[in-house]
């Protein structure tokens, strides 16, 4: 075998949220170095949250990410409610699930159709893909629009919605307003089933890894805002214990911190982890769709995450329909409590995986310290580990094809780099 040294290099990683780069160094078919560089400029959210009021954290942290603002709002609100000892009304809980369904539908439809499908069908983007597959792109856009419609209805706008408040919502909708979503959601359920069928027909590289999957698990439902944090290697903890089990490491090539399981190493969060750890709590329609698509837990091929995302689209549509039908407005839009000093932690399931927030408050309700661990910084080390294995498989390929395939391997994770630094470029070097 030749000892030729080559470099796979992507200066600006495309179709991810935020800015990053990749460099992979190859010697023959051996991978000598993998660096996922995140050069998105740091924004220091945790530092400037200090001294702000607890009621401001949800709106401020939403600005970490324009793709999943609701995830930030939910983790912030639940952490604050824990610090303040607030219990939310069951109707508010139901509305928050609907709100999250909207974000999952919008975010997953964006990723499946606009960001990831072009890799499988061989186009640089969805707009060029639309020239040959217009109906497919239009279906994706309509699905995305329905997710956005839910968010807009509950929160006033798609990006950085304004209605979520500590204890509930500033304003809750009338029953009749939610019922207006029913027709759209019925269409979206069918379109999601069609999405599963479509993406299950794509070609997937033969690549499986032995992951530690980490996700929330709830006894009765597929997780959004509640549950214990569990892993495929026996972890089972409350959100308050998160920092005892996970540590963040700062590496020189990245503005995002790498998170690892203490004593073990990288782990995977997001659709694959949720699906593998909560399969039996998916609605029957989603489980059947997974079965027909040939998916059974544990799914260990990260390239199949696009199919799992499509299955989660089915789940989100079915769940949204349930809420829309069962919803009765709460007696009051939100529960209130007097400020007090305390600490609150919460984990919720952002579309890309678990999002951890912790706040310490003083007796006036001002934030003393804040800690935020977004899903992409948790997956970042795992992405590098995947690339180390995967690059060896494509090392002999022409450089352009190998580079594209490695980019696709990163997009398996739907990384949100804006979140992770609160950036991504890909460089594959062949020596």
């Amino acid at each position: 075998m030749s000892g030729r040294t080559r470099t796979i290099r992507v200066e600006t990683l495309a179709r991810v949220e935020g800015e990053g780069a990749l460099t992979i160094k190859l010697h023959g078919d051996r991978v000598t170095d993998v660096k996922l560089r995140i050069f998105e400029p740091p924004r220091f959210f945790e530092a400037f949250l200090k001294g702000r009021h607890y009621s401001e954290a949800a709106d401020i942290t939403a600005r970490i990410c324009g793709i999943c603002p609701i995830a930030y709002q939910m983790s912030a609100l639940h952490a604050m409610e824990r610090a303040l000892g607030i219990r939310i009304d069951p109707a508010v809980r139901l509305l928050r699930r609907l709100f999250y369904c909207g974000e999952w539908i919008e975010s997953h439809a964006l990723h499946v159709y606009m960001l990831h499908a072009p890799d499988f069908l061989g186009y640089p983007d969805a707009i060029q893909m639309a020239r040959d597959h217009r109906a497919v792109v239009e279906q994706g856009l309509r699905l995305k629009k329905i997710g956005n419609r839910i968010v807009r209805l509950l929160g006033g706008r798609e990006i950085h919605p304004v209605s979520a408040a500590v204890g509930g919502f500033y304003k809750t909708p009338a029953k009749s307003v939610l019922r207006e979503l029913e027709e759209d959601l019925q269409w979206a359920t069918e379109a999601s089933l069609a999405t599963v069928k479509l993406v299950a027909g794509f070609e997937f590289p033969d690549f499986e890894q032995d992951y530690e999957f980490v996700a929330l698990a709830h006894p009765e439902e597929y997780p959004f805002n509640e549950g214990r944090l569990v892993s495929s290697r026996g972890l089972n903890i409350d959100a308050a214990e998160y920092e005892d089990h996970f540590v963040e490491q700062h590496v020189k090539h990245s503005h995002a911190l790498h998170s690892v399981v203490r004593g073990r190493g990288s782990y995977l969060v997001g659709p694959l982890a949720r699906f593998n750890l909560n399969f039996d709590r998916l609605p029957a329609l989603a489980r059947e769709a997974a079965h027909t698509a040939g998916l059974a837990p544990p799914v260990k091929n990260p390239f199949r995450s696009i199919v799992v995302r499509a299955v989660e689209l089915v789940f989100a549509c079915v769940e949204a329909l349930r809420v829309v039908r069962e919803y009765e407005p709460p007696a009051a839009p939100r529960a209130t409590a007097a400020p007090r000093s305390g600490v609150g932690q919460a984990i919720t399931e952002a579309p890309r995986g678990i999002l951890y927030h912790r706040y310490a408050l003083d007796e006036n309700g001002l934030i003393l310290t804040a800690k935020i661990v977004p899903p992409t910084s948790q997956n970042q080390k795992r992405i590098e580990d995947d690339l180390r294995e995967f690059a060896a498989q494509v090392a002999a390929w022409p450089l352009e094809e190998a580079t594209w395939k490695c980019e696709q391997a990163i997009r398996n994770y739907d990384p949100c780099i804006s979140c992770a630094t609160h950036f991504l470029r890909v460089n594959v070097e062949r020596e």
Partner: protein
Amino acid sequence: MNSERKKKPRVAVFKFASCDGCQLSLLDAEDELLAVAGAVEIAYFPEASRAMLKGPYDIALVEGSITTHQDAERIQQVRRQAKTLVTIGACATAGGIQALRNWKDVTEFIRVVYPSPQFISTLKLSTPIAEHVPVDFELRGCPINHYQLIELIAATLAGRKPNIPAYSVCLECKRQGNVCVPVAHGTPCLGPVTQAGCGAICPAYDRGCYGCYGPMESPNTASLTSQFRILGQSDQEISRAFRSFNAWAWQFRKASEECERA
């Protein structure tokens, strides 16, 4: 008539320090996206495409604020390649929420967030694009309104002034028949000093406007500050209200600093 196809205007999207939400607004224009993509050539938009074409560009949409030495240089290159440069959103137009560092010692911030501060290189201030290069139009909002973005692109292509009003959120509230939240409920509201464009959503959802579109054309922040005091707000609370997503916009900056000194 010339049988040759007219060359489409070339649009590029650049990102600096930001949350990606404003450029996502373009992808969120689900009904208009394929039509826009038909009318212009999307030459550089890494969030949406791995095909990245070199400049020059007819329109550069710039998201995010300048916070690093590299970005201060990169914006100069963007300006040189762009016929029309439009900033999209509060970060690019006013420095964004990350401009809260401008009142603090950024090296202290780095120590709070990063265990190995020596790996981080950053500027002392988060600044809007217009502090670095001439800007042709500033689109407001955290996030921008995608209808305003489509209007702006259409107007730029037609060579006319975009129809984007600079009056306050109050006018939008009146037009929609919203209840005035400070008058009816005593809720502090930045609507009178904030530029319209969002559709007055916060008052429509029973809360006060938090100023995410930045200062309107002639904001009377001193008068609003006294109203806030009448509603029982402390100077610290009023200062925090002005100091959010458009904190470094000079009118809001001045108002927050006056409260701090009071």
